[in-house]
């Protein structure tokens, strides 16, 4: 007797639950199609353009950020190390390698939801191309640890997930012409705190 209403209910629950869940998942997992992926780093050069795909448009409407125009630059983010393991503030990391061609770049840490990493004043939480110390071949090497470190250092605190944001200002990378040959620093994981 109750079979039919029950089946209708099953269909409705799957339709609404599945639809909402999958839409949320799609918007949280990525900023749309057309990502430029270089190892763990991903950028979305079309995110702000009128020709962006519906996922990118939904994503940017939901986040409400003032995006960088094409002549302004490009933002790469990484939420995993070069091995593919998620970045965690419980571990120490080292970034090593060349930086893409740009007039200016910054490297900063944000928390898992994308808001700036909370850090006590006085501790470095972002690094710029003017301040970074370079190796003789022009590459950079940045330590991401809890304790202070000689050389380029960004401080990790807390024990949650975090993301790295690499902002390139005025870069030919945004035109994506020579992207295949552009290298981003690799992210190597060091020692982790015990759970």
């Amino acid at each position, binding site marked *: 007797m109750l079979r039919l209403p029950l089946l209708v209910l099953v269909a409705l629950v799957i339709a609404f639950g599945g639809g909402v869940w999958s839409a949320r998942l799609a918007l949280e997992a990525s900023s749309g199609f057309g990502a430029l992926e270089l190892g763990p780093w991903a950028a979305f050069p079309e995110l702000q353009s009128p020709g962006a795909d519906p996922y990118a448009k939904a994503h940017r409407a939901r986040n409400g950020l003032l995006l960088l125009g094409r002549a302004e630059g490009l933002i790469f983010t990484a939420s995993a190390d070069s091995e593919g393991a998620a970045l965690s503030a419980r571990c120490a990391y080292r970034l090593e390698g060349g930086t893409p061609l740009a007039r200016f770049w910054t490297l900063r840490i944000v928390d898992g939801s994308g808001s700036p990493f909370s850090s006590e004043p006085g501790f470095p939480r972002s690094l710029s191309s003017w301040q970074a110390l370079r190796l003789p071949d022009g590459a950079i090497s940045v330590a991401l640890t809890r304790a202070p470190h000689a050389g380029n250092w960004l401080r990790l605190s807390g024990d949650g997930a975090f993301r790295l944001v690499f902002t390139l200002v*005025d870069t030919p990378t945004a035109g994506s012409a020579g992207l295949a040959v552009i290298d981003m620093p690799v992210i190597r994981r060091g020692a982790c705190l015990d759970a």
Partner: protein
Amino acid sequence: MRSLALAIAVGLVGAAALHIVIILALPGWTGNDAWTRVVRLGETDRFYALANEANSSGLLNEDLHINVAVCRFDLTEGPVRVQASGAVPVWTASAFDTDSSETFSINDRSSISEDVDITFVTPAQMLQLRRAMPESLASSVLVALVRPEGYVVLRAVAPLPSLVAGARAFLTGADCATLVV
């Protein structure tokens, strides 16, 4: 058993349809997109320099090295001219429409002079200006926008703490004004 499978199949088809509807309809419904936030900042024709800390407007300088100011404009009253000058290592600017899609972007290397001087016009105003170009607009970058409403974002880079004051002054001194033609 067969009817349960059918119910699940119908549910999955419905879920796919709802997924598509949500993705397509979301940009009009978030009430939290960049355009809405810019409108909430205040009136048109003036630059609002953003704070470094999270605040109720939802807009902030996410990158401490890059200071941002934003100005909303409406071209129906006349062309809007954006000007700024000062010693900053790098500045960039871009214009967006009400969908927060980029309509124009520029940086100090691609501009005519070192100072910011951009005039946004509608295609009709562009024709008018072509006929009789005012002397004062000779060195301004003229940009024709199809949609009269939008906002322009000006960014000043401050690589070192000592340069932050200069970048701030560059942004607070920036001018965004409707021209009388």
